[in-house]
């Protein structure tokens, strides 16, 4: 499928003065694609040249179209000497390669120079004509859509979620080539930028091929990263989730099902991990990798079949033999698939059945031991190993899939820590099967959804738990077991019921290590890792309890390696899930009980902690409803026991204990402060200051407990580099420094954004790096969103009421539940009033009755389905009536648009997948940009702060310009993946590399939408995709 790329250079403006004599510039432009270059005429003596060039045409293979960036260079013509470069623009033409995205790229692009920054702008028009040539052996994957968004993008419906795709490419880093010693910094930077651009293109193309092989048409949750390994090379790797997406028709696009923010909450369904059972492993270091074992092509076979049996886990949980049977089925299905991983963090309703907990794996590698640095095999093998471990952890948790999956690295000299983490989960295969056949799954799910507690129920066997946990009966349904605490890496499922608001919880930790070489170093690091992991976990747990909450979402633990220390930073959003028990308090115990003053001290601390918990409960409005026993009926949470073996549910009916639980005393968490370390811990617990009033923060997409966003958003990046002053660093001082650094940074953010109160910092993303011995760098990207304080309470109420109503409405249907499938659970609660009871029953099973009937024939069904899909016929039936009730519920947007800034050219950026108060009507393609900036006049540019401030502002500007040129007005799921900053103040030099990505979109304000929809079809929404075609 070759194509023709056409480029026209229109004009320039604000060019720099290149000729001192005339104060003007004689500019011309070189347009390069692949090996072909065109030039415009020289436009003499102007800072605002009007070239108005002809169309430059490149005839190229689509493979090149995918890999190569269009390179535009602006130069100053010089008759007597070499022409001086003014700067360049790289344009990724990928968005033009699939029909549903942009059709033309046209606009003003900043002209960028790696030494001088932005120097004026250039107006360019780019088009692509693709010739259809489907019979050719495909090396390209034009047509596969990429999304950074980690949920099913608005205005699409997931027909099938196929699963994990990954790819990795390696090259020599130009900065480390011999030629770098003789070329200019500019040439070197440009070589690097260009190479990474090429590699990203290649990577994307290869991943696209895998998706096509799986019969998918899109990659969601696409995450691409660079590893600057130094001497051993430059690695670009990516992971994502292959899907078959169906574009919702234009009418449907306006349904709440698609993208109203309210829908937001509804739409991403369940996910949930119970149990604080974090499992993690640490490989012993030093793998002299042979690189022969695995190739980078992880097999992609039979993707659709994988999740077949999965729902069974839940259904049969207490079901004895039935359960075992399903397990078997699932397992055998699983074996066909290498990695049942999903990079998604939010899911279509009903997709996620249970959550087992966080699984993570790390391994320490030595980069100088790679035998074949230029080949990807070694790294592929490394990652395969880690993924294998993740997979086995998930299995141990009784789960067959991992959701919210991500991978990362930390490199210091020749040592590299590879990390992967995710949330073990049990998924509902029905989603995969029924999507095609029955039309809109979401609708159906809606009716049968459990009351938002199903995901909390343990997927593992309680008689054989993978880790010690305290189980109780679910506080929502009273039927199934839940853990006392739940950690996950995903977003809060939209139907989860929570009490009060959530909050950002961070654990911070430093550990000194001796400087060492090679193996010794790697060994030291891998010895430290388990301790760090343990302490981070303990800190998280303490802080969670201090907040009076019982679950963490969006957990992300980052371990950073430096020359002489390791840093651990965990961020998550704490919430109180109604399904889980009230967390106990924290109890302090001393080891020397006879010492009076010590006792006093302890009791003082205890009081402080108790006060803090009480204060936090008030602050986050955590006042779980007392559950009146009469109404509930008899099912009672089982007495908690510390032993690993829990009695089976049928025995339990111990009312006394429930009383105890409601007082929250039972499982008080005991902190023993027998040494200074522990003392420190307690102190640091209490030093975290809550955000000022009117502020909330979380690191997830949406803030639990707040859903009435108004339209004002402010995305920002803040960077701090701190120098550790003392020479005699101890772990304590280091911890304190690090803690202060993070806390102060947060305080500064709250102060800076105070004019937006009431507001919430969402998707707060901290990254830590250790650029040099004594330097700690923290980079934070987040978005502040205003909300309407007064509507909040109401909305929450209606939400709860609604779910109750829905539950009761479900009763009838549920009566037809095939009893034999869940005899145990029903039998064990014979006295419960019908209503609650049935509601809970549905949630326990996690699978609607209708579905269960078909259990036996799942496999057949899936096969059938797979065939259907292969034929490429996908039916989109969105039932309009069903969808609409969702709209009525919440919505905030009444006041917002008035203040919205409607000036032409404004481009919003947000790390979230949605824009509050607006609907995304079109996805224009992925933005993935890499920039290098270097200076040899650091002081003149305002020092390191001036330099980096200007650079980040320029990066934002270039992202916005590209989005605007695609015809978009926002970037969603924006992420700054890397910000590598190096300075050498003595030489007056600094260098920075930044990598950002996101999805370019067109959004329409809801208020405007109402007007438009009244007038019917929207032009911007449906140019070419009404048929919901699927590329197969």
């Amino acid at each position, binding site marked *: 499928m070759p194509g023709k790329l056409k480029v026209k250079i229109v004009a320039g403006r*604000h060019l720099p003065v290149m000729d001192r004599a005339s104060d003007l510039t004689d500019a011309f432009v070189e347009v390069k694609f692949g090996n072909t270059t065109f030039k415009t005429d020289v436009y003499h003596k102007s800072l605002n040249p009007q070239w108005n060039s002809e169309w430059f045409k490149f005839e190229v293979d689509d493979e090149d179209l995918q890999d190569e960036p269009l390179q535009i260079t602006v130069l100053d013509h010089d008759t007597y000497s070499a022409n001086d470069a003014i700067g360049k623009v790289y344009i990724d033409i990928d968005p033009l390669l699939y029909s549903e995205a942009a059709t033309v790229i046209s606009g003003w692009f900043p002209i960028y120079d790696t030494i001088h920054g932005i120097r004026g702008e250039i107006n360019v028009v780019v088009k692509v004509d693709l010739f259809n040539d489907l019979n050719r052996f495909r090396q390209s994957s034009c047509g596969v859509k990429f999304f950074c968004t980690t949920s099913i993008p608005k205005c699409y419906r997931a027909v099938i979620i196929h699963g994990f795709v990954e790819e990795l490419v390696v090259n020599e880093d130009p900065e480390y080539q011999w030629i770098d010693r003789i070329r200019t910094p500019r040439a070197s930077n440009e070589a690097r930028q260009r190479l990474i651009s090429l590699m990203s293109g290649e990577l994307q193309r290869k991943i696209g091929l895998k998706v096509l092989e799986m019969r998918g048409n899109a990659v969601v949750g696409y995450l691409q990263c660079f590893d600057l390994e130094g001497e051993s090379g430059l690695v670009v790797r990516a992971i994502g989730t292959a899907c078959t997406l169906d574009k919702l028709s234009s009418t449907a696009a306006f349904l709440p099902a698609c993208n109203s923010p309210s829908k937001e909450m509804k739409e991403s369904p369940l996910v949930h991990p119970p149990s604080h059972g974090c499992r993690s492993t640490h490989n012993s270091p030093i793998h002299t990798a042979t690189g022969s074992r695995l190739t980078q092509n992880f097999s992609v076979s039979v993707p659709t079949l994988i999740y077949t049996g999965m729902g069974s886990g839940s259904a049969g949980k207490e079901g004895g033999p039935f359960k075992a049977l399903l397990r078997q089925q699932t397992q055998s299905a699983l074996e066909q698939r290498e990695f049942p991983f999903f990079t998604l963090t939010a899911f279509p309703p009903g997709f996620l059945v249970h959550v087992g907990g966080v699984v993570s794996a790390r391994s320490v590698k030595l980069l100088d031991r790679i035998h074949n640095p230029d080949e990807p095999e070694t790294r592929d093998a490394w990652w395969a190993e880690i993924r294998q471990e993740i997979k086995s952890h998930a299995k141990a948790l009784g789960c067959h899939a991992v959701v919210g999956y991500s991978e990362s690295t930390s490199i210091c000299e020749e040592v590299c820590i590879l990390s992967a983490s995710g949330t073990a989960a049990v998924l509902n295969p029905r989603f995969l099967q029924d999507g095609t056949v029955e039309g809109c799954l979401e609708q159906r799910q809606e009716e049968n959804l459990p009351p938002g507690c199903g995901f909390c129920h343990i997927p593992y066997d309680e008689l054989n738990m993978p880790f010690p946990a305290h189980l109780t009966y679910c506080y929502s349904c009273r039927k199934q077991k839940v853990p006392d605490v739940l950690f996950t890496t995903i977003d809060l499922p939209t139907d989860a019921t929570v009490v009060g608001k959530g909050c950002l919880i961070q654990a911070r930790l430093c550990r000194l290590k001796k400087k060492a070489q090679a193996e010794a170093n790697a060994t030291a690091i891998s010895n430290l890792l388990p301790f760090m992991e343990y302490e981070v976990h303990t800190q998280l747990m303490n802080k969670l309890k201090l907040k009076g909450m019982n679950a963490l979402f969006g957990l992300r633990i980052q371990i950073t390696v430096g020359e002489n220390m390791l840093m651990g930073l965990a961020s998550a959003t704490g919430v109180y899930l109604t399904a889980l028990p009230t967390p106990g308090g924290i109890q302090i115990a001393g080891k020397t009980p006879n010492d009076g003053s010590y006792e006093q001290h302890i009791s003082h601390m205890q009081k402080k902690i108790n006060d803090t918990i009480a204060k936090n409960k008030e602050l986050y409005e955590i006042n779980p409803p007392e559950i009146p026993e009469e109404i509930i009926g008899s099912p009672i949470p089982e007495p908690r026991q510390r032993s690993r073996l829990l009695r089976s549910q049928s025995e339990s009916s111990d009312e006394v204990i429930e009383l105890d639980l409601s007082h929250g005393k039972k499982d008080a968490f005991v902190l023993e402060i027998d040494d200074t370390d522990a003392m420190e811990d307690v102190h640091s617990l209490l030093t975290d200051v809550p955000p000022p009033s009117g502020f909330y923060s979380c690191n997830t997409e949406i803030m639990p407990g707040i859903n009435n966003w108004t339209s004002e958003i402010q995305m920002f990046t803040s960077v701090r580099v701190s120098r550790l002053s003392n020479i005699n660093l101890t772990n304590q001082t280091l911890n304190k420094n690090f803690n202060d650094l993070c806390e102060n940074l947060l305080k500064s953010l709250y102060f800076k954004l105070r004019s937006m109160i009431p507001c919430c910092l969402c998707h707060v993303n901290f990254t830590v790096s250790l650029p040099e011995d004594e330097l700690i760098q923290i980079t934070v990207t987040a978005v502040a969103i205003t909300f309407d304080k007064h509507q909040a309470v109401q909305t929450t109420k209606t939400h709860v009421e609604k779910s109750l109503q829905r539950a009761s409405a479900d009763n009838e249907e549920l009566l037809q539940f095939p009893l034999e499938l869940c005899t145990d659970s029903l039998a064990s609660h014979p006295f419960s009033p019908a209503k609650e009871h049935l509601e809970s029953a549905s949630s326990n099973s996690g699978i609607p009755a209708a579905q269960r009937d078909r259990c036996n024939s799942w496999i057949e069904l899936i096969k059938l389905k797979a065939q259907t899909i292969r034929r490429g016929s996908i039916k989109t039936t969105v039932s309009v009536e069903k969808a609409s009730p969702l709209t009525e519920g919440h919505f905030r947007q009444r006041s917002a648009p008035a203040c919205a800034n409607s000036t032409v050219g404004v481009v919003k950026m947000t790390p979230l997948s949605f824009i509050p108060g607006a609907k995304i009507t079109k996805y224009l393609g992925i933005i993935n940009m890499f920039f290098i900036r270097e200076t040899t006049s650091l002081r003149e540019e*305002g020092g390191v702060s*001036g330099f980096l*401030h200007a650079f980040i502002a320029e990066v*934002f500007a270039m992202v916005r310009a590209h989005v605007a040129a695609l015809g978009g007005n926002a970037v969603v799921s924006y992420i700054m993946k890397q910000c590598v900053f190096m300075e050498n103040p003595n030489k007056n030099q600094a260098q920075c590399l930044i990598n950002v990505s996101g999805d370019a979109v067109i959004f329409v304000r809801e208020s405007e939408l109402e007007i438009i929809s009244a007038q019917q079809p929207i032009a911007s929404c449906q140019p070419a995709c009404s048929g919901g075609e699927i590329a197969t």
Partner: protein
Amino acid sequence: MTNELDIFVGNTTLIDEDVYRLWLDGYSVSDAVGLRVRSGILEQTGATAGVLQSDTMDHYRTFHMLERLLHTPPKLLHQLVFQIPPSRQALLIERYYAFDEAFVREVLGKKLSKGTKKDLDDISTKTGVTLKSCRRQFDNFKRVFKVVEEMRGSLAGNIQQHFLLSDRLARDYAAVVFFANNRFETGKKKLQYLTFGDLAFCAELMIQNWTPGAVDSQVDDMDVDLDKEFLQDLKELKVLVADKDLLDLHKSLVCTALRGKLSVFPEMEANFKFIEPCRSDRWPLNDVRLFLNQYSASVHSLDGFRHQALWDRYMVTLRSCLLRMYHD
């Protein structure tokens, strides 16, 4: 532990109006932090001094980066690096070009040269405006002056177009440019009591009536210079003073007309032709107005006087100026 680097970059550039004012007023970061602390902001927000320091630094850095663009405001509108809502852009520009009354009275009518710039130290001491702020204001005057000096068309209009100022501020700048170009000495002791507003008012009238632009809107420098021809012609009016007969006749006409209407008639009679002294004699404003009206009108009854149109061009403006200047 010290922060070597500390930045905050928003997709929409954050502008804190209070900090902007402090920056424009020429305060150093530490002075600005001190002033902010005194404003009670720490108590209001619960922030720490460190947070305030970091925030102030950050805003100052932003303003410093924006300053280059503020020198040519249209660039601020078209640049892509800082995303700033239009209302904020307007605020940034307007405040940047605003000037202090005390400062402008010192500089008005002086040549905008390096020499004057050297005197800014003294001006700063005298007016209490920081040297930094004096420099900004002076540079603004000079920059505007240079851009519009040679331009065709309305002076205020040109300023507005090239600097995107509000109507009011553009007209003030027109006055500054006009005075600077014509070196009207406004610093004389006698004129000290006049505000910039008074002078700007006069300048506007003079621009309207006494420049070449008043006659022909296509000439170069139409609003900047006084109409040379007109100035030449004014000599003709001297006849009103030089010619004893004409003077007496004029005087008697005015006196007759005003007799009984003016509370200060005797003084007027004595001081005929010298307006300044009126002030020391505390004429009511109304009397001055009556007098001036009559004074200009009665010329039309002077048979021997041929320059009626010239007289009107001169007197209408002069009368308004005098009235405006007639206060304590």
